[in-house]
Structures are given as C-alpha cells and as structure tokens.
C-alpha cells in the first residue's frame, strides 16, 4: 500500500540529510527533522531573506529561552500551529501539550518554544507538537520506514507552506521538474510527505465515495463514510439478489427465450452501440446462431430474422449435451475476448451445435 501513498515512479532510498545549524538535544534524535529547512535554504536561495530570521530565532530559542515576544512573528506562527493536522513525532513517546499562545511558562514553555519554533520551520514535526497524537497513526506508522522517501516533495511543499505563512502569498516556488506527482500543500496544513500522501489518498477516497454516492440511490441524505458504506453494501447486495431472483424467473421461462433475441435487439435502448459481437468465432466453431432481423439495426448489415422457423426444431435435432458445465462458461468467455466485429449470424438448421470446449 505504500506505493499508493507515494505515487511516484521511483522512491529514492531514504537518505538522511544532515542539519547544519546547531540544535538542542531533544532534536538530535531527529536529524531528519531539520533537513527540509537546510536544503530549502540551499535550494531556494531567493527565499533566504524570509528564512534568515527564522533559523536565527530557532537557534536562539533552542539554546537559550528567549523572551517570547521578541520574535514578532512568533505569536503569529505559534497561532498557526493549531491548524496543523496531527502526526506523531518520531522520537516522542508522549504527545506534547498543545500550546498555541505566546505565554509559555518556564522550562515546560522552553521545550514547547523550542519545539514550536523549530517545528515551524521544519514541517515534519509541526503537527505533532501542536496536536499530539495523530489521527492517522496507522498510516503514519506504515510510512515511518520510508521517511525521506519523498523528501523532495516535502521540501517543495514545505517551501510553499512556509512561504505562505510568512509572506501570505501563494506563488509556487520554482522547482526542477521531478517525476513525482506535485501536491500542493494547503495553507495551514502540515506538509510532510506522509501527511501529503495521506491527504491525497483521502481525497481520492472521498472523490470515489462521491462517485458512489451518485450511483447509489438514496445516498444523498446520508453523510459520513460509515453510513455511506452501509448503504453501498446494502445496494450491492440488493442488486445481486435481484439478479438471482431474475435468473430464477428466467430459468423457469426459458423456452420462450428464443423470441427474446429479436425483441431485445429491436429495443432502442440497446442500439446506441450496436452489438459489437464476435461473429467470426461463430462460424469457426459452429456455434448455433440465430438470424436477426436487421430492420431496426441500421448500422449493422441486414440480418434476416428467422426466429420461428428453425428454432422450434432445434431441441429435438440437437445432439445431447452434458449439463451446463463450466466448459460452457468458458465458451461465453472466449466469445468475448475476440475482436469485436459486426454481428453476422447464420442460422444452422443442421443442428451443428457444438459447445466450444
């Protein structure tokens, strides 16, 4: 399922990038945490101006508890943490408390501050700090192994994200074209690769649920995935049961089926795409055919219908076959896999009916 998450043609092997600015101990275990930041600075030099203030405050906050109001943007950035989705941190055992406002008391505050400021810069831990336990823990844990797999994408999206937050602009940063699916990180949402992939997956799922909602009648009033799924399951079961019931009825009226072909084919609703059948196989294998009347089927070459003449005599003249085995099913299948050609049926009155085995 991982490939569903990453959607890239080739996931590069995880290569931890080394962070170059000094970081406090709590973060040493998470070297990859600051990778996007450093690489961002190097790769997108024209953002340096907006970035230079941040690492300095990061370092400052990490090394010594600064007055929280010193950073003018801090409160604004800290306030934005509340909007981030959650993702459990790699190295954290317990979810850190959510601290959005600027007042962070003492040592607890320091850790939060040092948490939050670097987290601001480095998106990977951002959610975990503000929200604690992630909602999508299961998918997170599944993706923990390939943390740096789409680091490029996270860099790009993180750049968008941070740029949005600092400059409040939505310009897409220039990027060398990669073969990943570029996902735009939305404002106020976490941008690490896992959450991005998850978000894409969630969007795919919700898009398909919408499709299903249109298909299943009476689903409009139902909201929520669980109820919708129940409705869908009910509907599929009812459709299958209906097919069974109809087949039971059809089995009992089977002898009348000979006439159905003609009537069926003359129905307008079936004529939008007319009967691309595999007629070639019929002749080759001497399967019984039925001549059809081509009056209403204009695009196909005229097929004389002779429904009543020969078919009545078939039941007596035909060689006896074994019960409906799966060989017969095979023949249905094999009829289907040949190229479609216009229906050209010839009636075999000599009763050369042989089922394709």
């Amino acid at each position, binding site marked *: *399922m991982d490939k*569903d998450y990453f959607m890239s043609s080739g996931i590069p092997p995880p290569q931890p990038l080394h962070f170059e600015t000094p970081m406090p101990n709590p973060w040493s275990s998470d070297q990859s945490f600051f990778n996007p930041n450093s690489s961002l600075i190097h790769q997108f030099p024209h953002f340096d101006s907006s970035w230079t203030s941040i690492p300095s405050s990061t370092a400052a906050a990490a090394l010594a508890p600064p007055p929280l109001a010193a950073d003018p943007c801090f409160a604004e950035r800290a306030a934005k943490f509340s909007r981030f989705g959650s993702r459990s941190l790699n190295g954290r055992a317990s979810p850190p408390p959510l601290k959005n406002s600027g007042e962070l008391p003492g040592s607890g505050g320091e850790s939060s501050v040092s948490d939050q400021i670097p987290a601001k810069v480095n998106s990977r831990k951002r959610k975990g700090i503000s929200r604690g336990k992630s909602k999508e823990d299961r998918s997170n844990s599944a993706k923990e192994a390939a943390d740096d797999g789409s680091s490029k994408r996270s860099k790009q999206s993180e750049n968008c994200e941070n740029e949005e937050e600092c400059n409040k602009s939505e310009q897409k940063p220039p990027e060398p074209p990669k073969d990943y699916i570029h996902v735009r990180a939305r404002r106020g949402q976490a941008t690490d690769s896992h959450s991005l992939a998850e978000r894409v997956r969630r969007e*795919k*799922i919700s898009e*398909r649920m919408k*499709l*299903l909602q249109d298909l*299943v009648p009476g689903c409009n009033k139902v909201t929520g995935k669980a109820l919708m799924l*129940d409705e*869908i*399951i009910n509907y*599929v*079961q009812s*459709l*299958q*049961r*209906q*097919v*069974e019931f*109809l*087949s*039971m009825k*059809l*089995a009992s009226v*089977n002898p*009348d*089926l000979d*006439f*159905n*072909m003609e*009537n*069926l084919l003359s*129905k307008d*609703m*079936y*004529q*939008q*795409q*007319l*009967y*691309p*059948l595999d007629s070639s196989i019929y002749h080759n294998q001497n399967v*019984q055919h039925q001549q059809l009347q081509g009056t209403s089927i204009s695009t196909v070459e005229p097929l004389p219908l002779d429904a009543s003449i020969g078919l009545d005599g078939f*039941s007596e003249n035909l060689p*006896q*076959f*074994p*019960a*409906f085995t*799966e060989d*017969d*099913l095979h023949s*249905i*299948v094999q*009829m*289907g*896999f040949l190229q479609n050609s216009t*229906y050209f049926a010839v009636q075999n009155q000599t009763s050369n*009916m042989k*089922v394709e085995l």
Partner: protein
Amino acid sequence: MNIQPPNSSSIKSRFAVKFVQAMKRLSKRRGMGDRYKRYRATRAAARVSLAAAVGPERAWSRAVLRRIKKRRGLIGRTTTNPRRNLRGLVPGGKGMDYCSLLSETAHYITCLQAQVQVMQDMLHLSSP
C-alpha cells in the same frame, strides 16, 4: 487515476447478446428440466456473461473470469450471502487496496444495474 466510467448501453448490449446465447445453449441441454440446476446454471451464465461483456479491463471482471479459468466454485458465491463487507461482495475485492475497491465497486454497481435491466427486459419480453 480513474478509468472511464462504463458505457451503460454498450455493456447492456454486450451482456444481452452473450446472456441470451448462453441461455439458448442452456435450454437446449438435456437434463435441465425445471429444476434447481437450471436456476444455478442461469445464475452462473448471468454472472459470467456480465464479466465477459465487461472484458479484462476491470479488476472485478478479471477476478470472475479467473475463477472460471481455474474451474473453481463459481456459482456458490452469492448464495452463501457473504458478510456485510464490501470486499466480500465485489468479486476480487479481497486483494485490493481501498481506493481501487471503491472504484471497482462503482463500476460493478453500474454493470449490475445494466444486468438487472437487461434481465428484466428479457422477462417482460418473454412473457408479456
């Protein structure tokens, strides 16, 4: 990566022809009196004809056709009324990831609807 939604009328016509032919073959068979056997055969023919009409482009139809080729128990699936699980209902649903399962379900529902319509028409036509 959504594949095109199915064209209902094309599926209807393809299914109709295949199913009618299968039913004709079925009716010519000896040993198929008015019995439970006939019902089972009809049901199997319906399922197979639908999958054959759809072709190999869909995972669920591929799963159905695979079952035939393996000559495994094709018929007894729906009678046992599998648990209320979408994976159990859609053929081939067990091995799919969730996203594909949803899209396969959508396609499957469309095809089932087409199948029901065709069979209803057949019933109406045969005994007006």
